[in-house]
């Protein structure tokens, strides 16, 4: 398609193209990242929403699943 055009407009189009491709790729990869990150958690934190590489997890209300209490 019209990829061989040059000029600032073509650059913007190209950046936009890559951005959309990357965002789709993120949607595709994301569940696998979640699966991997969760599989690396200690048992007591496996139910916090965030994978462990994210800081400052949001406290969950209500902690229906495994709050740190239930496992003790």
């Amino acid at each position: 398609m019209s990829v061989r055009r040059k000029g600032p407009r073509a650059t913007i189009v190209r950046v936009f193209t890559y951005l959309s491709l990357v965002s789709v790729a993120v949607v595709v990869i994301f569940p696998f990242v979640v699966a991997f990150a969760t599989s690396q958690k200690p048992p007591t934190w496996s139910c916090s929403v965030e994978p462990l590489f994210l800081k400052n997890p949001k406290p969950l209300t209500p902690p229906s699943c495994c709050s740190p209490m239930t496992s003790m």
Partner: protein
Amino acid sequence: MSDTITTDTADSADAEAEPRNALGTGLGRQLKLLSLWHLVGAAVSVVGILLARRGGDIELPWMPRYALQGFFSFAFVAHMASAYGIGARARWVRPLSLAVNYLLTLVAAAATLHLFNAFRALGDLGEGLYKAFIPFGVICVGLLWVLLSGQMLTNRPTAVGPQRLRTAGWSVAGLASVWFVLKADPSGLILSIGDSLTRPLALGAIALTVGAALATRLMWSRAAAKHFGSTRATDEALSGLAFLSPNLLGFLIFFAFPLLFSLWVSFFDWDTTNTTRDFIGLENYIRALSIDFAHSSQSNSGTEVLKGGYQVLANLDWFGQHWVIGARDVEFWLSLKNIMVFLLLAVPLAVLPALVLSSVLASKLPGMKIFRTIYFIPSVAGVIGVAIVWGQMFDATIGWINYLLDLLGVSEAGQGQGWLTQPDTALLAMVIVFAWMSFGFNTVLYLAGHQAIPKELYEAAEIDGANTWQIFRRITVPQLRNTTFYVVITTSILALQLFDIVWILARPIAGGPNFATQTPVLTLYQEAFTNNRQGYASSLAWVLFIIIFSFTSFQFRRQRDEATSGGVS
């Protein structure tokens, strides 16, 4: 059927003219033995028929019983005819004798394996593999070396390095095999084989296997072929059938027979354990498809306005009139409705992104292969693992989707949407997972379609000054019409058989909240294996089969009509 010769050209016959006599007298004796074998075989067939009827120690279930009786009846006739035909030197005897002996070899071998509990022992093999998983891994590594060195040796046959690698690979694999056997501890297996060896039936089966195999080999030989005046075409056909036979037998036993049997069962009231088996004609189909409309004066009428045995499927209000739709099998109709909704949502969602993405990926920008690879991953990762991950994503309290929605401020924290527990969204969640899994595969299919589009079309369009959207709309989409057709069909066929995703995501009730994710295959599974109504479930399977088939053929016809009535050829 080993490396004996299957062709019989005139040249080779002349070349072997000299030892012919010696072979001939040997052959004569062997053929006498073969006649004798056929007579023995006929007697064994009679015993086989009787044994199958009595079932030996235990009563055989009807399927293997009928199969064995049928086979041995055929074998009896074939053996008798062969015994006569060998003496008469008839032309037809060689194929017949080969067929009966070959089949007898297979049947007797299967019986031997069965009597030695070899099929059940496959489970023990899994146990052994578990105990000896590390040696098994080492064996695999060794064989991988061998494979690698083989690859290298095809390029440089005399290289020393690969040869050493190959030796090392074989020795590693060999040593690990010993380790494997020690770890896996097959003593139980050996003991049970020893046990079986004392049983006369097992010994008989072994003898029959060996005898039939030897007879097959003798009849297969070139000398026998010459003796019975086999033509080259017959030889060719025989070897063709021999090559095809393992495949064909599997095809017949595990595809053709079940297909017909499924149709047969669907006319019966048939439960899992075969205690009930009544022919009821089309009753199963009538029950599955029965539907009743009733006009009612007040809204929200129930079963009272419907015929007996019908339950309410839906209440409709049309122009102030109230209608009640009832069905005898509400679950099935609901599942049909669900799957149609699913189809309408999931197929566009799995196909349209693929169409757009493939148009981008087909351009020669750098890095496109990486994206193609990434997009393909969900369709190979395995539906169970994927569904389990998505189950966490959709969770109401700890799910990522609600978390991200909270971050975006779409919904309030802690007020999470129960995606999988609400009837309105449960099916939508399945649609998302399905589309996520299949769009990458469809993208690759589209990429193949792109390769077939003539580059001149694009060049001409660019000269005309068409913009990207116009090119996509006027060239890419029409040119990809055949691919689109194929992609839509395959995706629809997959979507109509939706089961695994629902099974995992809609826990604990697979039908989901308020039957919102009841699918036809799920209904079929529940009828067959929870309610034990296998006859009825088979009729559902055939209804589903016909829906899938008509669906594809309808679209196929439309496509063909469009193609013949002009347009892009």
